[in-house]
């Protein structure tokens, strides 16, 4: 236990030392919320990856690859399509962000649709939907600490330790804001995805060479993709990939990455840097999981595959490193979530209706982060049997932001009535379907509730775009926004 916890302690101490060296600045809320839009491509790339791939990748998706096989590759495809979307959105979103000092995703909604209330609606959907995932992230740390303690801690003790560690880490998120998040993401990301990938490739080699495992060792059912005769339904894979790719950019903590870059060039370069890393990391993880599923020691404990194989191959040192990699990945995700939520509470909820100065915005943001950290910490220590269902429900709901978001960025015609109605109707349809059918719609050929609701959402948006034409003034305003993008230079 001293070895495994010792390795993690060294990582944590180094992280705190990096965070302590960052200069505090409260000259503007932009500095606190988006780091003064000052980050280059390398920081952007690692920050995106560290927020995109949480620690649960190693447990949930590693476990899914071990248990279910090739279907788990949907996460790789949608993760790469997400970067493609980032490349396409980079120019309009960054240019508008810079020109109008946008700091959050709801800020973009308010600008594009010329509406104050849409900012509140988008913020509420984002904040509420993020909480179950925050709690799940904290509880996943508990799973990790339980394993790292070599069985000497109970699950409850391990969860409490995980919550304490992540809550301590948030002291610097609250103090420093976005700069602290991005700089620590760089360090955490190097560990999680460079060291993590090296470990995964090494472990694949170990399984092939020492254990004689190959793809031929797997049951042939692990290579099938659900088709027309499957119990999941013929459109199941399409639904997973589509909602995953579109939904990724609906999370406020992912979207805000588009505002932290120092230019469109950095943003696009970060996509070019992140995508090969994402491909190698995620493919290695899934191949590792599939091959490891054959090991008798993994058996039914597929979610522990990362720890089981690391320990079997490299003893306590590799187990300690496996825990450190997972901790680094988890921290990036949780920090990003808490920081973005704090900014939204100040900027999009309270700041939307009261005139606040810089200091007030920062104080409210800090209080919001503190409150959220305490709330999530408390919830993590409770027995919440419906938590996973709530998280799935939240995901099906939040992806409904995709329609007004993407159509708003790429199509001039949409209006605020269509945007508010489409995401509200989409959200309600998704929630009702999910609560009624619990993720298995018997008439939808494998489409999830969120995917069906997205269809309704698009129809409402497009119909209202034609039924309620923009006023002349609104048309001119929106035209000017799009012209700014088409003429955008000096980026």
């Amino acid at each position, binding site marked *: 236990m001293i070895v495994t916890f010792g390795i993690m302690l060294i990582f944590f101490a180094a992280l705190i030392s990096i965070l302590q060296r960052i200069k505090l600045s409260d000259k503007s809320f932009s500095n606190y919320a988006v780091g003064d839009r000052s980050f280059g491509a390398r920081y952007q790339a690692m920050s995106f990856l560290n927020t995109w791939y949480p620690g649960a990748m190693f447990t949930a998706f590693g476990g899914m690859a071990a248990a279910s096989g*090739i279907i788990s590759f949907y996460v790789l495809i949608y993760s790469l399509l997400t970067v*493609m979307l980032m490349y396409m959105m980079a120019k309009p979103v960054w240019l508008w962000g810079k020109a109008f000092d946008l700091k959050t995703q709801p800020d973009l909604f308010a600008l594009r649709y010329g509406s104050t209330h849409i900012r509140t609606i988008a913020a509420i959907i984002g904040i509420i939907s993020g909480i179950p995932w925050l709690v799940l992230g904290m509880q996943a740390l508990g799973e990790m600490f339980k394993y790292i303690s070599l069985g000497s801690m109970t699950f409850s003790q391990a969860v409490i330790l995980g919550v304490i560690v992540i809550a301590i880490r948030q002291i610097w998120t609250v103090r420093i804001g976005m700069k602290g998040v991005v700089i620590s993401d760089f360090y955490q990301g190097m560990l999680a995805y460079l060291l993590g990938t090296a470990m995964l490739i090494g472990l694949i080699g170990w399984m092939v060479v020492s254990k004689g495992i190959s793809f*031929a060792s797997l049951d042939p059912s692990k*290579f099938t993709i659900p*088709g027309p005769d499957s119990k999941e339904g013929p459109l199941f894979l399409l639904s997973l990939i589509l909602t995953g790719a579109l939904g990724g950019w609906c999370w406020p903590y992912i979207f805000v990455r588009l505002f932290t870059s120092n230019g469109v060039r950095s943003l696009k370069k970060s996509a*070019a840097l992140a995508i090969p890393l994402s491909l190698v990391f995620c493919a290695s993880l899934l191949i590792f999981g599939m091959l490891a599923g054959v090991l008798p020691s993994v058996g039914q404990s597929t979610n522990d595959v990362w720890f089981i194989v690391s320990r079997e191959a490299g003893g306590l040192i590799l187990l300690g490193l496996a825990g450190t990699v997972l901790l680094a990945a988890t921290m990036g995700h949780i920090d990003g979530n808490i920081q973005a939520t704090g900014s939204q509470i100040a900027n999009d909820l309270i700041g939307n209706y009261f005139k606040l100065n810089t200091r007030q915005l920062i104080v409210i943001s800090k209080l919001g982060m503190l409150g959220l950290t305490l709330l999530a910490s408390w919830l993590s220590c409770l027995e919440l049997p419906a938590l996973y269902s709530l998280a799935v429900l939240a995901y099906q709901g939040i992806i409904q932001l995709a329609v007004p978001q993407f159509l708003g960025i790429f199509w001039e015609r949409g209006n605020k009535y269509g945007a508010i109605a489409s995401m509200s109707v989409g959200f309600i349809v998704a929630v009702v379907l999910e609560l009624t059918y619990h993720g298995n719609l018997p008439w939808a050929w494998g489409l999830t509730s969120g995917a069906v609701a997205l269809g309704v959402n698009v129809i409402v948006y497009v119909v209202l775009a034609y039924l309620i034409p923009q006023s002349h003034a609104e048309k001119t305003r929106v035209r000017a926004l799009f012209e700014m993008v088409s003429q955008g*230079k000096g980026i």
Partner: protein
Amino acid sequence: MNKTKNIYLVGAWFLFNTFVALFPPLYWAVGKSTGFVFGLPASLIYFMMVSVSITLSILYAYRQDTLNGEFSS
């Protein structure tokens, strides 16, 4: 290649990526197979080829944007 042609090419490549990643009959056909090609299952080859295509399209788009002066002021 001039800027307009490049924009169309990148757009077409992005559309192709979306099509091969999402078009159900394509993955149904691959997903039924349990055969191996060069020691690798057909469905793995499908997912890896889609992934590599998406990756290369971004790298190509960034290279072309840089060469075409998209980022110069």
